[in-house]
């Protein structure tokens, strides 16, 4: 399956995909659309990607993390398109013999995605839409 997709993401599927019989600790991060940002009401988020590069960047992150966390199996997906509140935008599943490594790799996975994968989001609310700027001061509410 493509790592960047327009299809809905079912987090449980990726947990099962990551698990091997020698694993005891599985960690999952799920980023979902929330109903507010900086006090503004949010009705939907529209995700756009530079698709071929985003695919490759996700693969490169997996390769990098396989070196940093050799005991961990990682499965990562990013959805694009228009998502309603509560819909899943990103999933990082990490499975490992021990929980410490699973937590560390899962956290590293979402941080790398947010730092490196060419995906953008446009916030839709009652007053129209605005592109989210990650460096814009967002005092209390950063994205996911």
């Amino acid at each position, binding site marked *: 399956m493509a790592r960047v997709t327009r299809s809905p993401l079912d987090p449980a599927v990726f947990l099962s995909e990551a698990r091997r019989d020698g694993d005891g600790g599985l960690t999952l991060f799920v*980023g979902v659309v929330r109903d507010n940002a900086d006090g503004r009401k949010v009705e939907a988020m529209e*995700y*756009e*990607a*530079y698709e*071929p*590069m*985003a695919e*490759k960047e996700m693969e490169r992150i997996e390769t990098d993390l396989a070196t940093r966390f050799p005991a961990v199996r990682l499965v990562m997906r*990013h959805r694009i398109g228009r998502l309603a509140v509560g819909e899943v*935008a*990103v999933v990082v599943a990490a499975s490992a013999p021990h929980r410490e490594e699973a937590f560390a790799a899962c956290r590293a996975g*979402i941080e790398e*995605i*947010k*730092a*490196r*994968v*060419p*995906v*953008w*989001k*446009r916030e839709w609310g009652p007053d129209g839409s605005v*592109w*989210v*700027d*990650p*460096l814009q001061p967002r005092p209390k509410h950063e*994205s*996911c």
Partner: protein
Amino acid sequence: MRVEILLFASLRDELGGTCAVEVPESRPGEATVGALREAFLAACPAAARLGKRILVAVNERFAGDADPVRPGDTVAFLPPVAGG
């Protein structure tokens, strides 16, 4: 040399999906990413708000200002990423 640039997200909304820029060559058949960025900002003042925060990808990989751009490369200018 003339370089065609792919644009995404807010840059695409403001400037269209692609734009072509004339950039001085650093040596025959080659320009730097830094020179291309300058030429782009000069040609498209609407992009000035992002300035150095624009990320450049050459052949679907992030590139630094010292990296080369050659004819046939796929070049994209990207606003700061905001996935997740």
